[in-house]
């Protein structure tokens, strides 16, 4: 295990306890437990794909059981580009979450190397490297540490193409960073800073929910001709496990995925809370005895449409608007605090586009407008009960 400096860096890299904080992830129906189901995942585009018929593309393909850090590592190893360079704090020996395990041995220490603890420098270095046409895959050890690099990302990376009228660009830059909460990370290891970057037009923000998604979305992000911030929900590194196709495939950026179909209410989320939404939906249709008195029979049969946004910027307005025009109700669930968050932007756009179809106000279920509090982290997170509460209120509005 990698020794971290005490104080600033997160001390523990232990897996979160089995059956612990988020029991729904282990049993989620969104994860693909068998090769057959995994290969049927919608939206996979194989690098060696020949025809347009996806069912034929399944034939002869192999899968392997992976968790999300293994899928991330698999994607980086598959990026198949001689100029690709992987760098960040401690990445040469695997990184705190093991996402880069063995890459230095496989691809050489001149291509996979540790940087000093120097986030602004990492981002600036990566931007310079990418402007030379190199594929630069940078890791910021925790999304919470990305703020020293904020200037570089917002003022350099995002605007490089525009202000040089396309003479130069840093499209080959991808910044990976673990984000969201595990339940005990506290102020500086549990934040979700995606909303801060939403005004930086010129970059893309991507957040996967599972190993299959992480691999395909990361390969797309690395190859996308725009700089991308790829935020990996850290609690899912080990807790989400599924069969992942071994071949090189991508999942298109800017496209949300509808996970369950319904006509009564739309929920939009991304990353870890997707699983809380799933749990809340189960609680709604089959409330456990302790909750049953609070779940009116009239709403138990409601059909809910759950959308995983996947790309936060540019977000898939069409899919969400189309859904809300059908359901007339929208709840946005994210871990970051509400004020100035991504949910506010989605709410504003949807109420504009779907105003006459809305049967209830757009509801946000988010973290509170406080720091992520060490002792109260479980209360901070938008857990299934809070989501359930919002669902019932919105359905009964």
């Amino acid at each position, binding site marked *: 295990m990698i020794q971290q400096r005490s104080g600033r860096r997160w001390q523990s890299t232990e897996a979160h306890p089995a059956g612990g904080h988020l029991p729904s992830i282990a049993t989620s129906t969104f994860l693909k437990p068998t090769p057959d189901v995994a290969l049927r995942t919608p939206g996979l585009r194989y690098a060696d794909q020949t025809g347009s018929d996806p069912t034929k593309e399944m034939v002869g393909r192999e899968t392997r059981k992976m968790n999300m850090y293994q899928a991330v590592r698999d994607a980086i190893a598959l990026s198949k580009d001689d100029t690709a*360079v992987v760098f960040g704090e401690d990445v040469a020996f695997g990184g705190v979450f093991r996402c880069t395990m063995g890459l230095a041995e496989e691809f050489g220490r001149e291509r996979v190397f540790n940087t000093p603890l120097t986030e602004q420098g990492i981002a600036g270095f990566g931007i*310079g490297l990418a402007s030379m046409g190199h594929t630069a895959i940078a890791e910021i050890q925790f999304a919470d540490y990305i703020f020293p690099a904020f200037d570089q990302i917002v003022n350099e990376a995002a605007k490089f193409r*525009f202000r040089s009228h396309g003479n130069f660009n840093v499209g080959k830059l991808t910044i990976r960073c673990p984000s969201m909460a595990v339940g005990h990370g506290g102020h500086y290891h549990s934040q979700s800073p995606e909303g801060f970057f939403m005004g930086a037009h010129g970059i893309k923000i991507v957040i996967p929910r599972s190993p299959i998604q992480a691999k395909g979305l990361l390969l797309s992000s690395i190859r996308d001709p725009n700089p991308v911030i790829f935020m990996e929900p850290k609690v899912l590194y080990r807790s989400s496990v599924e069969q992942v196709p071994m071949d090189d495939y991508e999942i298109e950026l800017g496209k949300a995925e509808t996970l369950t179909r319904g006509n009564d209410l739309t929920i939009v989320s991304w990353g870890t809370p997707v699983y809380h939404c799933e749990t809340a939906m189960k609680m709604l249709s089959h409330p456990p005895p302790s909750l049953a008195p609070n779940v009116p029979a009239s709403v138990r049969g409601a059909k809910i449409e759950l959308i995983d946004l996947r790309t936060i910027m540019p977000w898939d307005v*069409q899919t969400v608007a189309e859904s809300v025009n059908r359901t007339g109700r929208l709840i946005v669930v994210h871990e970051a605090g509400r004020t100035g968050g991504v949910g506010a932007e989605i709410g504003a756009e949807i109420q504009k586009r779907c105003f006459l179809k809305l049967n209830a106000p757009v509801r946000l279920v988010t973290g509170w407008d406080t720091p992520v509090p060490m002792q109260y982290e479980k209360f901070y997170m938008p857990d299934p009960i809070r989501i359930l509460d919002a669902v019932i209120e919105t359905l009964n509005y």
Partner: protein
Amino acid sequence: MASLARIRSAVPRRMHLARAIQTAADTTQLHQDASHSEPFTVKLHEDSFHGYRTDTPGLDVEVTKENLMRWYKEMNVIRRVEQAADALYKQKLIRGFCHLAIGQEAISVGLNSATTFEDKIISSYRTHPFVILRGGTIKSLVGELLGRVCGVSKGKGGSMHVFTEAFQGGHGIVGAQVPLGAGLAFAQKYLGKKTATFAMYGDGASNQGQVFESFNMAKLWNLPCVFVCENNKYGMGTSAERSSSNTAYYTRGDTIPGIQVNGMDIIAVHQATKFAKDWVTSEKGPLLVEFVTYRYAGHSMSDPGTTYRTREEIQRMRSTQDPIRGLQRYITEWGLASEDELKAIDKEAKTEVEQAVEEAKASPFPDESELWTDIYSAGTEPPFMRGRDREEMHYY
């Protein structure tokens, strides 16, 4: 703050090193008869360089008449363009921000003289000269300042953001280009190229944290990066002594050796650049180069430049240490050209600039549709973007 100011002024100014760097522009001596066709050797003033953890570049420099005449022409064109920009700004034809390099011409011309287009130069926002020197034209520079389509960035970058294929750009955030320079140098090293990166910043930017982050990475990974500090004595409106605990900027790289250079003498700048390029391309790691120079104009157009320094100081620099006048003296005193011939060059530069300004003014503003281009790579944009009013939407 008033009391703080009193405390600061009570602190004695930094004691100069044994001897201050020479910053006169005309102290180079002829070593042998100047030839009109063959290279000949001249000797720089012995205080043209100071070294930190390294020997200084040699004082004997081989030059040719052809080079000296070209540098003279280039410096004249640059000064004329900057003066034209000053006038255009005052006519409100250039909007936004504009920073002039008048007084610092020897640095851009000298750097360019000892590098090739394969070398990378990245700098801040006082970078108009590099467009003219490294692949652009006067028209494409002035067009960019005016925000016209004939500009190097098609009018979308403006004064602070000029790029050419051989110039990695003007960058508007103080110090932000320096770590990018480390990235450029890494790519050069990775590709096995015998080329150098010159990452430039000012005395003001040298106090930014990310500059030190870049020093550390470049030394750690032995990158072919020359960190070039253009010390023009003032970071915006604050003098170096009032902003920096150590004003010997060439010594601020800790384990990275550095040289301090007379940035007013074009021949010294040329020699130092050659030295620096040789240094980093022979795998000795990064090098700091501090050019001691002087900015005649204010920091930007909104700064008259006379509130934090005296008019006499500016006047003294202009009359005693001007880089163009220095080179002019070399050329005439060494018998390479007459004053009349130089005046003709000057006139030619003036005409060229005037003509380019008129051409640039005739160029149209970018089409409104350009507002939405180059934000994302073509074909990978979001489906739409909001326009200037409620009704206007741009669909890709």
